[in-house]
C-alpha cells in the first residue's frame, strides 16, 4: 500500500525542483515510519482503552489522567527520552538503533499511543450499555462483547487512529533528534521525512520549497484519511 501511495503522490511531480528519487524516498520514509508507528500504537491502544473503559481497578482515574496528559507530550521531549534510550550508552545502546527508522518509529509510537487510546476510550465508553448487555445475554464471551463494542465504536476509533497518524506524520521534533535527518549522498532519504526535509529547506531560507513539501504532506495525509475512512465504512 505504501508503494502505491508513493507512486500516486509523485506522479504529478514531473516538473519538480527536487529529483524524483529524493522526494519519493522522503515520502516512503514518512509513510513507513508513521504508518508502522500508528499500527503498533493501535494494537496497544485498543486493549488499553477497553481495559481502562470497562474494568474496575484501583488507579483507573489516574490511568485516564495519564492518557490525557500523554496527548500533550512535547515531541522534542519524547525525542530526547528515546535518544537517551537508544543512544550508544543508553539501555538499548547495544541494538544500534540511534539514527535509524526504528528509533523514529519508537518515538512516534510514544506520541501517537496516548492520542489513539484517549479517543478510542471515549468512543468505546460511549457505546450504548444496551448493546453490551444484549451481547452478554446472547451468550457472548468477554472477547465477543469486546469485539461487539469495538465494532460499534469503529467510527470513533477510526477518528482516533487518524488523529494519532496526524500527530505522528506531522511532528518534526522527535524524528529530527532520534533519526538525524539523514539522506545519502546520492539523495536517497534514509531517515529524512517530509517534516524534517521541510525544516531543512526552511533553515536555508528556501521557503517556497519548504511550502511545496508541506503541500505534499497535506495531500499524503488526505490520501491516507480517505483510505482509512473507506476501511472504516465511510460514515464519519
Amino acid at each position: 500500500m505504501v508503494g502505491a501511495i508513493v507512486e500516486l503522490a509523485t506522479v504529478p511531480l514531473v516538473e519538480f525542483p527536487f529529483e524524483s528519487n529524493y522526494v519519493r524516498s522522503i515520502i516512503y520514509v514518512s509513510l513507513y515510519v508513521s504508518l508502522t508507528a500508528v499500527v503498533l500504537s493501535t494494537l496497544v491502544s485498543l486493549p488499553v482503552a477497553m481495559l481502562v473503559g470497562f474494568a474496575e481497578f484501583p488507579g483507573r482515574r489516574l490511568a485516564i489522567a495519564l492518557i490525557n496528559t500523554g496527548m500533550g507530550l512535547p515531541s522534542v521531549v519524547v525525542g530526547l527520552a528515546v535518544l537517551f534510550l537508544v543512544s550508544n550508552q543508553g539501555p538499548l545502546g547495544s541494538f544500534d538503533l540511534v539514527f535509524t527508522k526504528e528509533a523514529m518509529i519508537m518515538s512516534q509510537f510514544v506520541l501517537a499511543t496516548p492520542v489513539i487510546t484517549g479517543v478510542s476510550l471515549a468512543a468505546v465508553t460511549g457505546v450504548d450499555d444496551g448493546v453490551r448487555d444484549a451481547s452478554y445475554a446472547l451468550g457472548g464471551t468477554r472477547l465477543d462483547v469486546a469485539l461487539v463494542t469495538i465494532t460499534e465504536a469503529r467510527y470513533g476509533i477510526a477518528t482516533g487512529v487518524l488523529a494519532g497518524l496526524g500527530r505522528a506524520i506531522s511532528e518534526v521534533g522527535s524524528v529530527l533528534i532520534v533519526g538525524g535527518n539523514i539522506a545519502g549522498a546520492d539523495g536517497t532519504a534514509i531517515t529524512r521525512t517530509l517534516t524534517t526535509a521541510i525544516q531543512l529547506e526552511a533553515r536555508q531560507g528556501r521557503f517556497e520549497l519548504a511550502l511545496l513539501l508541506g503541500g505534499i504532506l497535506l495531500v499524503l495525509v488526505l490520501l491516507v484519511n480517505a483510505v482509512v475512512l473507506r476501511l472504516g465504512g465511510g460514515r464519519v
Partner: protein
Amino acid sequence: MGIAGCSDTDDGGDAEITDQTLTLTTTTSTYDTGLVDELNLAFEERFGAGVAAVNEGTGAALETGRRGDADVVLVHARALEDEFIREGYGVNRRDLMYNDFVVVGPDDDPAGIDGLDEVTEAFRAIAESESVFVSRGDSSGTHTKELELWDAAGLDPGGEWYREAGSGMGQVLVQADQSSGYTLADRATYRSMRSQLSLGIRVEGPIEDGPELLANPYGIVAVNPAVHDTVEYDLALAYIGFLTSRAGQDVIESYTVEGEQLFFPRSLSAEPNFEQYVPEDWTREVD
C-alpha cells in the same frame, strides 16, 4: 594499502568494508552548502562504504560524538574540538579546510561599519548604535566565534537590539535580512544564499584580506574507540585519510556554488604542523 589498492575493476574496493556505514556528524555550514554530499559521494566511490551524515551545530555534533553515536566529527570551533580531545573522546584530529566569517548587514549600514579593518571595532559600533544584531544562539561554531568576538571587543551584548535566534545559519541570515540587522555569517553559507538576501558584506574575513580574527578553520576528529568500542574507528580513519588526501582536498578545492569556491583545502603540507593533532595550547609537561 590493503584497501582497494590493487583493483582495476573499479568496483568500489574491499568487500570487508562495503557493507559498513560510517556515521558522520557535521555542522550545518558544510551540510547546507552541499559539500559534505560531494565528499561522501567521492568516498563511497572509492571505498564502497556508505556515509550517514547527521547535521547539527558544532556543540551538538561533538555531544553526539561524546555519546558514541557518531564515528567521526567534522566541525569548526577549535576551542570545542580541543575540549573534546582533552576529555579523551576524540583522537587523530586533522586540519581539513578553512574559509572565513564575514559580518553582513543592510545596505544603509546604520552602525557605519562598512570597510572597518577591525571586527572588534565593528562590533563595538553595532552595540553603541544599538543596531539590530541577530545571533545564532545555538552553540554552533559560528555562535562560538561570535561570542569570542564580543569578548575580544570587551562587550557583553544584551538588550532589545541583540536577538538570539537559536536557529541555523540560513534562517539567521533570513531573519537579519528581514529585520535589517547585522549578523556574523560563514562566507560559504552567505555566498550560497546571497541571491535571496539584500544583506551585503560589511567586514571582510581573511580570505579577502580582512582581520585574521575572522578565520574559520574546519577540523575532523575520529571518536576514540577506547572510550566507545562500538564506533567504526577503522572506517573513520579511512574517511579522515580520504578527506585529507589529495583526492579529497581536490574535491574541496573544486567545489563551487554559483561559480564561487566556498572552502579552501588545508590538509596537504610538507611541514609537520604538529598543532593540528593536539589541543592548540598543549605543551608536553616537563619535570
